[in-house]
């Protein structure tokens, strides 16, 4: 039943959206508020926003995971950190949007920009990154570490040279999952990155992502066919992200489990 719903959604969007897709649709900028033209600038906006967000969040997330797994025992500190991460994961995106708007857009005067948007997104994906990296690092057999210590390496050397490389596939999985989440995110991005249709020139320019574009097209009834086209690209991107994640995870699991 659940699967039927899934197939129905994917099939429906692709059926209506694929005919709209063409090389030109992907490579021309939207014209007349999105009524004509393609979605080029929104693709660039999505990529810029997502990449920046991951660049900000990944070091924080992986660092937290290393601390939680390698540098400490379970105590009140780890409980506080875990509780914080879990709460953060449960906060709805609209709250992140409000927060990003007040802190980055108005207080820090970044304006509606890729920077504001990606900082907000980075906070949103942080819990996912912490959790998946932690799981990946924990899955590395303890013997690996013992061998490394017995060879006289320090903790940090062990972490960077032995543990992290072995946990990499799992960590990458987490990163890809966060990419997927960033691509689909709308509510928080619309208030922090704005919805300018121009091609972004720096991280301080406002940019519209594909999901925001899709939302505006569909909600304001600007162009149904372009909306379907954008939705199809979104769905394809999410599908690709999930397939890659699954493939990497599968290989990782076979190695250790």
């Amino acid at each position, binding site marked *: *039943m*659940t*699967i039927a*719903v*899934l197939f129905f959604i994917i099939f*429906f*969007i692709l059926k209506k959206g694929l005919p709209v897709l063409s090389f030109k649709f992907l490579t021309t900028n939207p014209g007349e508020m999105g009524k004509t033209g393609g979605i080029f600038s929104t693709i660039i906006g999505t990529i810029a926003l997502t990449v920046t967000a991951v660049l900000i969040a990944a*070091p*924080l997330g992986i*660092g*937290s995971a*290393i*601390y*939680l797994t390698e*540098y400490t025992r379970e105590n009140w500190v780890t409980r506080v*950190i875990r*509780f*914080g*991460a*879990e*709460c*953060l994961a*449960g*906060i*709805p*995106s*609209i*709250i*992140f*949007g*409000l*927060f990003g*708007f*007040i*802190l980055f857009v108005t207080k820090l005067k970044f304006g509606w920009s890729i920077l504001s948007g990606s900082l907000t997104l980075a*906070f949103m994906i*942080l*819990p996912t990154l*912490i959790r998946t990296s932690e799981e990946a690092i924990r899955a590395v057999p303890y013997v690996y570490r013992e061998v490394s210590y017995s060879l006289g390496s*320090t*903790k*940090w050397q062990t972490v960077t040279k032995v543990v992290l490389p072995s946990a990499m596939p799992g960590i990458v999985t987490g990163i890809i*999952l966060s990419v*997927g*989440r960033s*691509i*689909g995110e*709308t*509510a928080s991005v619309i208030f922090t990155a704005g919805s300018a249709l121009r091609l972004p020139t720096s991280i301080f320019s406002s940019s519209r992502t594909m999901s925001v574009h899709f*939302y505006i097209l*569909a*909600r304001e009834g600007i162009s149904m066919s372009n*909306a379907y086209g954008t*939705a199809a690209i*979104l*769905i394809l991107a*999410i*599908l690709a992200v*999930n397939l890659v994640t*699954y493939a990497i995870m599968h290989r990782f699991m076979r190695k250790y489990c």
Partner: protein
Amino acid sequence: MTRLERKESLIRIALLVVAFSAVSVLVVITVFIIEEGTPIMVKYGFKKFLFNLDWFPSEESYGLLPMVIGSIMVTFGALVIGVPFGLACAVFLTEFSSKRLRRVIKPMIELLAGIPSVVYGFMGVVILVPFIRETLGGPGLSVLASSIILGIMILPTIISISVDSLEAVPPAYREGSIALGATRWQTTRMVMFPAARSGIIASIILGMGRAIGETMAVIMIAGNAIAIPRSLLDPVRTLTSNIALEMAYASGEHRQALFATGVILFVIIMILNTIANVTSKRRKA
């Protein structure tokens, strides 16, 4: 202390600081939202803010009651639809399906979780809303439509956490029950469910949090009228859509009132999260 040791201890401290990033983000968010939202609540009167029926920002009248009731109705509706389906699916996956089937279905459920909420909203607009309008009457944009779409959206949360907790029940429980002559279904109902209860409750609460917090899909299909709905077919506005709809042009007190809406939402979510956290902790202990 050698140079190497000093480096090691520096790294340890740096990692500790990084590890607190999530907590500090949480604190900063809490502080900012509350700082921005509470002044107007105090000025306008908390009770009036929460229980007044009129939301006319242009006339400085900020009553959230319709939105609070809207959020509650839609969330409850989503649970009515999502919980039975989700639990049935989880039971099927853990108790009645082969391992191979489970390996195929689980990633698909994750995929369902990955579909952007705007796409769900859009599906609601182009398929569900016209369907409701034609078969049941009313404007179509309604409590019913939002409940169904939200019910589908919370399925992955409910399914994956319930599956995890059902799988965590020691196999000896199931074997013991079957050895006593119980059927599969009896085992599920009388042994597995009680044993996995706290995890299942946590999954429902988290699903509830997701339904309350959902914004984009709800804006597109709920109709957003500021009135307490009289039937399932009436349009409704939730707390989240109230914020998202008016944020674009709000300023001054109006904007503060939207932040205050955010505070209320935030408090609800934190309460739900804490309950979910405590129930799932108890399971481990």
